[in-house]
């Protein structure tokens, strides 16, 4: 060996010998009393929307302080890049938020394209591009609630160094509304509620045409780079075909796209220009693995760090793996629901079974099925039947009737409603009509199919016959114009997982005006419910800007829905996520799952 190499070897040996000495030089610890003032953030609902408030708390702690001796620590060899791998069962369709429709696309966007703020795991806003969260208190929401001013974070930058400004947001708004962008997925709520969007001293000012209580959770949750896309728009007249949609070269999030092999995988690398500084991780790999069993195999083999949206039937397997996988159940507003078809208009094809018009029959159905047992046995006790749709949020009516399993009461209610088995064939009837209900849901989810057969058996025990008519997902959700089974009322009990506009409680499917017909085929009130009281309450909450009053309105709403048994909760459908033991600081949110990706870390 050459003399230089020898010297290097000797140097390394000496350095290795010296390193432990640094540890030996630790002096004895001292005990020090310290008074520490901590600032904690609390969510308080103050006029406007949930708001983050800082409070000061003084604590006295005893801390052991060790004096650290400055030792020349040899330069460590370059550390292994910190990588987290995850598997998606579907590939994103686009990476531009105005175009993508798939949930997985929104997931990836959490990593590279946050908007004004994200909603964290306790559903508080976590500021990203915004400097402050607007409330009536800090004056950023006008008195009449029609103008909102949002100052933009002065540190926010794009990955090429350009600052993120309010102009970018105005540009985003313009692109959404521009009819030349044909492939835009949705113009809601901008087209419906926004009058104007302008810039004022690097603050974004939104002028509403109508009070819109849900604005903070549905608007500007992403932003497009004006300096990159404006030239494209000017030269091509549209940004539908911009390369940025598939290859976002300039981003404002913690990570930027490194590579995307269609059908195979995406890799993202750390963005040094992220306003909070470079994230802990160096790289995130996303593999596209369409088969859920193959994904489970990946989790078992340790090939994936994050398991996404897993089926509850995997819970026993995951529990057996608890030494290297952690499960997280995340509130997302979804509940597996039963809806009754209450259509009664002249078009007979749409009408539900006449028995369902009687609230006693609906309540009997609720009492006849042991939803608790279903949750206990089929879902391993990991969830429970929710009495209202707004379960786990302040909007749920606290005294709702859970309709606990009581087959005797069900039979009594049915008898009282006049449905008895007069011809001895096992199912009840009245006026010559057999009480046989069509039970429809989508194919392909094991738990749903299991629930179906179990519910069928329980309903048969009280004399209600069931006919199963399931369809594959896109056939099931075919529109009214295309004769879709739900849209055209060809069901009596419909089961699917439903949510409101999480995290905002609003929904429009209960309104009389939303009942689909030939004139307005796109209505979403497929159950034909036209309850005046309910209608009035929903319309009131839409414009109610006072959060306390809004909660009261929803209590009324959920009370009515519960008492009249318009809706039954089958199970509270929280999302099931897993993380491997080596992934650290991963906290999922039901609204923006990857909101804290900048904090993620790995420990091998």
């Amino acid at each position: 060996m050459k003399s230089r190499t020898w010297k290097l070897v000797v140097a390394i040996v000496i350095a290795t010998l010296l390193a432990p000495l640094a540890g030996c030089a630790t002096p004895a610890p001292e005990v020090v009393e310290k008074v520490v003032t901590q600032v904690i953030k609390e969510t308080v609902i103050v006029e406007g929307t949930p708001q983050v408030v800082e409070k000061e708390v003084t604590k006295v702690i005893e801390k052991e302080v060790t004096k650290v001796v400055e030792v020349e620590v040899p330069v460590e060899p370059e550390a292994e890049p910190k990588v987290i791998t995850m598997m998606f069962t579907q590939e994103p369709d686009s990476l531009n938020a105005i175009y993508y429709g798939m949930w997985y696309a929104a997931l990836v966007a959490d990593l590279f394209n946050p908007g004004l703020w994200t909603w964290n795991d306790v559903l508080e806003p976590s500021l990203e591009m915004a400097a402050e969260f607007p409330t009536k208190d800090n004056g950023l929401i006008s008195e009449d609630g029609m103008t909102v001013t949002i100052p933009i974070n002065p540190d926010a930058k794009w990955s090429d160094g350009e600052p993120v400004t309010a102009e970018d947001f105005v540009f985003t708004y313009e692109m959404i509304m521009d009819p030349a962008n044909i492939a835009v997925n949705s113009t809601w709520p901008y087209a419906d509620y926004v009058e104007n969007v302008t810039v004022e001293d690097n603050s974004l000012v939104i002028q509403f045409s109508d009070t819109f209580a849900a604005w903070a959770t549905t608007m500007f949750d992403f932003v497009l780079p004006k300096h990159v896309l404006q030239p494209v728009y000017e030269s091509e007249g549209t940004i539908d075909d911009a390369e940025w949609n598939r290859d976002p070269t300039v981003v404002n999030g913690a990570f930027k796209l490194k590579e995307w092999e269609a059908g195979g995988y995406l890799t993202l690398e750390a963005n040094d220009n992220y306003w909070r500084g470079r994230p802990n991780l160096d790289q995130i790999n996303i593999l596209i693995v369409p088969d859920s069993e193959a994904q489970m195999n990946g989790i078992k083999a340790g090939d994936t760090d994050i398991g996404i949206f897993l089926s509850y039937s995997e819970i026993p397997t995951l529990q057996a793996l608890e030494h290297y996988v952690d499960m997280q159940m995340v509130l997302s507003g979804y509940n597996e629901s039963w809806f009754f078809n209450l259509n009664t208009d002249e078009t007979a094809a749409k009408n539900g079974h006449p028995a369902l018009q009687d609230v006693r029959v609906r309540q009997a159905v609720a009492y006849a099925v042991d939803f608790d047992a279903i949750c206990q046995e089929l879902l391993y006790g990991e969830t429970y039947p929710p009495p209202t749709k707004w379960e786990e949020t302040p909007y749920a009516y606290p005294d709702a009737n859970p309709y606990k399993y009581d087959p005797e009461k069900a039979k009594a209610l049915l008898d009282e409603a006049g449905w008895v088995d007069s011809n001895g064939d096992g199912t009840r009837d009245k006026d010559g009509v057999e009480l046989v209900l069509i039970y429809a849901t989508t194919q392909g989810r094991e738990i749903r199919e299991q629930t179906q057969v179990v519910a069928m058996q329980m309903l048969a025990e009280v004399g209600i016959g069931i006919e199963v008519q399931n369809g594959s997902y896109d056939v099931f959700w075919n529109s009214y114009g295309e004769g879709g089974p739900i849209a055209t009322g060809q069901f009596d009990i419909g089961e699917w997982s439903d949510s409101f506009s999480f995290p905002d409680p609003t929904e429009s499917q209960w309104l009389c005006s939303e009942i689909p017909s030939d004139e307005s085929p796109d209505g979403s009130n497929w159950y034909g419910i036209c309850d005046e009281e309910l209608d009035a309450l929903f319309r009131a909450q839409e414009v109610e800007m006072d959060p306390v009053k809004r909660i009261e309105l929803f209590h009324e709403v959920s009370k009515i829905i519960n008492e009249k048994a318009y809706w039954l909760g089958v199970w509270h459908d929280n999302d099931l996520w897993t993380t491997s033991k080596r992934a650290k600081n991963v906290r999922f949110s039901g609204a923006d799952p990857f909101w804290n990706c900048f904090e993620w870390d790995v420990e091998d």
Partner: protein
Amino acid sequence: MTRYIMRRLLQAIPLLVLVSLIVFVLANAMGDPLASFGGRRRIRSSDRERLTRQLGLDKPITVQYAVWLIGNDWMDIDLDGDGIADSKGTRQGILRGDWGKSFMEKRPVTDLIRERLPNTLLLMVASEIVIVVSSLVIGIYSALKQYSFVDHLITGLSFVGYSMPIFWTALMMMYVFAVKLKQWGLPYFPTVGKYDLSVGPTLAQIAWHMVLPVTSISIISVAGYTRFIRSSMLDVIHDDYIRTARAKGLTEKMVLFRHALKNASLPLVTIVGLDLPLLLGGAVVTESIFAWPGMGRLYWNAAQDTDVPVLMGILMLISGAVVVFQIITDITYTFLDPRIRYD
């Protein structure tokens, strides 16, 4: 010969038109393309109406087919919903080379196919080679040693292989050779994907990842082909001219390869010729289970989402390939059997 080819190609045109028509009607009747648009939430009514109009789905099916065929840039369409047709269409139709854009990904269908096709070809051509070589070897051996124990064993095994559902075979292979082997600390195969992201798309990586899917696909076909070749060889071996060749003193090898094989392989050429174009559709289930980014999955996703342009693109590709390969097969016959001639 050239005239024959031209004639066959001309005959194929009405066939392709018929296929495209039937598939188009069926694909559109299959489901609602917009149902999958909203992601987890269902699409809003105002947007549904706009998207229906922009994708041209509000037109009657005959018009939609015509647009797919010859495009709509020669007519005016109503883009902004005001009832006045004032914008020019942007599509040119497949006859002019525009295969349309995927509903889901809003990208040209040709891009999607171009990205996935090489992966599928890789898998399927490798499988086909494994299948043909293995079944030739096993089939010929089995035929020569007819009624021996080995023959019976091979026949039995091939029946079993032939009777297994593909998804079961694929899942079992992954379960045993990828998950279990790793758990037992033995050298193991990878579970999913084309290659390890940390290593990159090297030849070794891709080959390693191909082992399990290729084996799963091959098992069933090898079983079927082996039976076929065996009976085909048996037919030929007992023919008079083989007896003559042996009587003349030719070595067994010459007899086999020069005389028997050529004639026994005629039916094999038929089958391979029929199978090859279907390879383009990929093995839907295998590709899903092994997460191989190929045409099969593109196909299955498009079927699930009722992504009509992609479905039409893939099916026309396959149909075109079927036609071409049938012609190639027929021509190959003339080389293998001089008695066959076309005018």
